[in-house]
């Protein structure tokens, strides 16, 4: 090979060779002006010094012998622009050419009349190709479609064996010497980095050079047998020699752990094996209900990754069936009413739904909301009555609000046990959070000046009072009959919308009982607002519902914090404008997306759509505006129908006819999965009421459920 020989191609179609060994200042050697358009690529033969190949925009490839003035042979690509030409390193006579239309052609230089073979490699122009230095049949191509593909040419049909997806169109590919599976790439737009890929691991580059400030225009390995030096030129007018050990390795920065929760509370966790094995003895979070399962990927001994240890372990922690059940979520989602009725009715309905599922805390919240936002007048007057009845006892209690007072006040051991049992289902997933809250409760207890005789409940109550309170309500109702003198008036009123008569009776209650009443109003730790409302109602008869907004906001935040976005979002939708401004847009959006995501994972499409529709968040509303296209294939010719869903352009037939009325169906179309006849939803419904056979007369016994 001649070290002094250089060939260049120019945009005006000229191919020039330069001889650096020339003594004169002008090193120009030869000039070929045979191409009419821009020459995209020139390539020397790997063994023949004088043989030069060029590929041009005008669709021709020309082979020059540098000892002659003109080209030796011309190869025509049928007026498709040639983007790259490359002599095979192993086969003396073969070269590959890539084209703007996505094709790759293989030629034999002895036969200029016709290519040996051709295949479509990419969608859009193929910018570059490179023969594997060792493996005879391997050809790598890179295209505008951001792919690098490796083709095996040994078989009769070129077979794609590897494919790497990059982030920008691929301008150059170069196999790394001495490393069978490594290939370097660079891009011509947007991305300035040079990547070295292991083609067997197409998702993450094995090395990366980030020095260039503008697009890289060319890359080359410095020596045929040296895999450690890479030269690159760039539009930022720099030329770099990269040493391989300087390369950054994205794998080091990649997060090798993966963690995912399933719908039913199962937890999958994948991590490096080494990490798992050292930690597996501890298992700090694995309760007896969770059974870890281990998966391990076996290492293929034939594969030798140099930089990556890819063995990892996957552990799945399953929750037991009962506790992981999310039925309540599905039922709630299905039964909740979110719009279309007055606020009070919505709240009542939803409270009933929640109570039906034994979620009393939530039910209570709904009831509270109704009181705050719709029947404000009556309630505040009631409160007024109350507080007056209570007299002085109420006031100190307000200051020393304490959770434990409630079980104490209700004071029934059996109830405690029951509620404990009931709350287990919810309890399990929230173990940690409930502990946390309980701690807070305890702190609040300290320094409270509540008389000890209120604390009738035993120590056990500590642990569960949070949940017990959820279940307070039904018991309270029961107690209405068993303990009439206690008569929890406010509770009663919430549930049953009591008449004024009740209040008169309430007023007659003894003051210490009314103290209990005050506490029972504060049903849940978060709903302390009822207490406060009482205190204020002492001074003011009618409070604007805005007044409660901060408290409602806190309630919602609490629910969301607990993982119950369902309640948070539902309340948000039901209250609409009343509360929207209180919570910042981003939090709302976050709740909405979480809830919608959950709904969709439970395949509750209709409900998630309703939520999207009702949401007031702009970002959420947009969800329904994306991808609104429905693609339909014609039932006759099976081809896609481009214009309208009911008439096919190709076979000119109406694709979806109603089997009953024989008209085109343009709206809802229902069809039998057995015989695939169908029609207008209404028509089919009506038909199948009277007949069990298919309306099309095919004899099939259709079912409509």
């Amino acid at each position, binding site marked *: 090979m001649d070290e002094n020989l250089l060939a260049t191609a*120019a*945009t*005006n*179609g000229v191919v020039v060779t330069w001889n650096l060994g020339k003594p004169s200042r002008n090193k120009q050697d030869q000039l070929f*002006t*045979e*191409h*009419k*358009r*821009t020459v995209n690529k020139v390539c020397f033969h790997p063994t023949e010094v004088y043989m030069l190949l060029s590929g041009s*925009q005008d669709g021709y490839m020309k082979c020059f012998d540098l000892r002659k003035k003109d080209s030796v042979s011309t190869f025509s690509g049928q007026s498709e622009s040639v983007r790259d030409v490359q002599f095979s390193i192993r086969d003396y006579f073969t070269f590959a050419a890539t084209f*703007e239309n996505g094709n790759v052609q293989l030629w034999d230089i002895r036969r200029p009349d016709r290519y040996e073979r051709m295949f479509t490699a990419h969608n*859009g*122009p193929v*910018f570059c190709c490179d023969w594997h230095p060792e493996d005879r049949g391997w050809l790598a191509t890179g295209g*505008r479609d951001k792919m690098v593909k490796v083709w095996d040419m040994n078989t009769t049909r070129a077979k794609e064996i590897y494919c790497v997806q990059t982030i*920008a*169109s691929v301008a150059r590919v170069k196999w790394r010497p001495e490393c069978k599976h490594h290939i370097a790439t660079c891009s*011509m*737009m*947007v991305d*300035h980095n040079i990547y070295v890929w292991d083609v067997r691991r197409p998702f993450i580059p094995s090395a990366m050079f980030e020095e260039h*400030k*503008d*697009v890289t225009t060319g890359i080359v390995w410095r020596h045929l047998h040296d895999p450690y030096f890479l030269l690159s030129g760039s539009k930022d007018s720099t030329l770099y020699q990269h040493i391989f050990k300087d390369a950054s390795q994205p794998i080091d920065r990649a997060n090798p752990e993966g963690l995912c929760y399933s719908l039913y509370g199962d937890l999958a966790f994948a991590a490096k094996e080494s990490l798992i094995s050292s930690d597996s003895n501890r298992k700090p979070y694995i309760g007896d209900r969770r059974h870890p399962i281990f998966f391990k990927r076996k290492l293929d001994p034939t594969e030798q990754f140099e930089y990556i240890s890819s063995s990892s372990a996957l552990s799945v922690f399953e929750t037991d069936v009962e506790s992981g059940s999310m039925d309540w979520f599905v039922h709630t989602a299905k039964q909740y009413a979110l719009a279309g009725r007055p606020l009070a009715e919505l709240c009542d309905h939803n409270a009933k739904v929640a109570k039906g599922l034994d979620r009393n805390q939530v039910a209570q919240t709904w009831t509270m909301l109704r009181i705050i936002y719709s029947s404000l007048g009556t309630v505040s007057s009631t409160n007024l009555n109350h507080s007056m009845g209570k007299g002085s006892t109420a006031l100190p209690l307000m200051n020393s609000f304490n959770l434990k007072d409630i079980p104490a006040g209700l004071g029934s051991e059996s109830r405690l046990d029951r509620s404990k049992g009931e709350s287990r289902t919810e309890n399990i997933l929230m173990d940690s959070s409930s502990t946390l809250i309980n701690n807070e409760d305890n702190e609040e207890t300290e320094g409270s000046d509540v008389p000890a005789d209120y604390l009738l409940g035993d120590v056990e109550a500590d642990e569960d009072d949070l949940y017990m309170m959820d279940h307070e309500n039904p018991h309270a109702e029961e107690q209405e009959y068993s303990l009439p003198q206690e008569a929890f008036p406010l509770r009663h009123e919430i549930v049953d919308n009591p008449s004024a008569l009740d209040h008169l009776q309430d007023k007659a209650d003894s003051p210490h009982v009314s103290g209990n009443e005050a506490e029972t109003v504060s049903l849940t730790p978060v709903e302390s607002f009822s207490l406060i409302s009482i205190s204020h109602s002492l001074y003011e008869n009618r409070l604007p519902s805005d007044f409660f907004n901060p408290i409602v906001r806190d309630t919602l935040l609490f629910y969301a914090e607990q993982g119950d976005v369902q309640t948070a979002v539902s309340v948000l939708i039901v209250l609409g404008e009343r509360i929207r401004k209180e919570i910042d847009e981003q939090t709302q959006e976050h709740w909405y997306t979480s809830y919608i995501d959950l709904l969709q994972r439970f395949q509750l499409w209709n409900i998630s759509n309703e939520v999207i529709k009702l949401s007031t968040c702009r970002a959420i509303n947009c969800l329904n505006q*994306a*991808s*609104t*296209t429905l693609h339909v294939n014609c039932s006759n010719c099976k081809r896609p129908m*481009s*214009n*309208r869903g009911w008439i096919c*352009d190709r076979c000119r037939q109406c694709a979806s006819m109603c089997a009953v009325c024989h008209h085109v169906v343009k709206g809802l179309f229902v069809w039998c999965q057995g015989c695939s006849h169908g029609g207008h939803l209404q028509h089919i419904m009506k038909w199948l009421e009277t007949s069990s056979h298919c309306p099309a007369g095919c004899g099939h016994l259709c079912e409509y459920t």
Partner: protein
Amino acid sequence: METPKHPLPPGAGSGGHRRCPFRRQGASNGIPQEGGESLHQLLEAFLSAGRVDHIAMVMGLHPQYLSIFWKTQYLLLRMDGPLPYHKRHYIAIMAAARHRCSYLVGLHMGEFLQVGGDPAWLQGLHCAPQKLRNLNEINKLLAHRPWLITKEHIEALLKPGEDSWSLAELVQALVLLTHYHSLASFVFGCGIKREEDQDVGNGCWAPSPHSNSRAASDGSMGGSGGTDAIQELEVLMERMKLLQEHQLEEEGVTQEEMATRFELQKTESLLVPSSDILDPSLQSNIRCFLEDPEFGYKDFTRRGEQAPPTFRAQDYTWEDHGYSLINRLYPDMGQLLDEKFQVVYNLTYNTIAMHCGVDTSVLRRAIWNYVHCVFGIRYDDYDYGEVNQLLERNLKIYIKTVACYPEKTTKQIYTQSWRHFKHSEKVHINLLLLEARMQAALLYALRAVTRYMT
């Protein structure tokens, strides 16, 4: 110069019978042959838009193109995209107003209201949100002097703030703007008249321009002109053949000479009279969408001024760079535009006027490159001497007028150029102009975006 009026009112068919000599060719090439397909395309257009506008009818002469044009416009206006629908139409209005194209402005005012746009915006640009008003500067430049767009313009629009654009939105807006600027060229170039029923809203068979012969314009050139025109045609044919056969006749052309020829072409384009008089009859409904209405195309090689550097086509090509960028920021659009450019660049029926079996690639390339030249884009591998040989002066005037200030197109310059060509062929030229112009403006805009990103 006449005030711009539609050169071919649909009723001007008085000379229709006189084009008899060419009618047969028309039949063998143009409309009836692909009539089936063309009709199909129109049907498709009608189904998706509810009407067939005159643009579609004129483009229907080239059904292959119409199809891809429709797909692109459909994606641009009605499919998924970062901009809301009403803003898309408003941007279309802004773009068309730059060229005083009342046809397009009217069309999109209707569409704008239909998709729920705020009628107040239609009172003028000053009533539109600041975000859209910010687009005005780039609209102005893209329409008239795209070479002035710099990355600073892009930066200003993307600067975070209340009315900032996102990159994806901006790219869609850029495509919209260039699309409608060049479509305005087409509208004026073909003399497309406002649909008479535009306000009534039905009837797809308003008299279409192609039903009254465009070639009937011989009427305006008189008998003696006829022979001239035929001679011109023969000369053109001769030269095309020559160019194809001896492309390398002058081996010794140096790079400097080629560059000079390009400069010459640029300078020569100055010969085209460019009247700077603002049309007084400018309708107020368009004027309200204009700021700085005096801003117009200006030749960049005026004597004594620092000319902006020439855009070398190979530095930023559509195929390599433009496509990649658009496809990244506005998925699917790159593909469609790419297809559209390719279809129009390769569109040929191998006929010229009454001759068949002619390879017109040289001519098409000359036209394409001349349009790019007018916008300052230079191809290293093109000999601009060819432009002079192939495009006679009247045609150059026509091309430049339509591409740079379409609002000044008159019937006169339409008929004076290429007198023996069929109507469908003139539409073909206009399609070339449309796409070449769009690509030129897009390249400038995308180059600025790329520079902003790096």
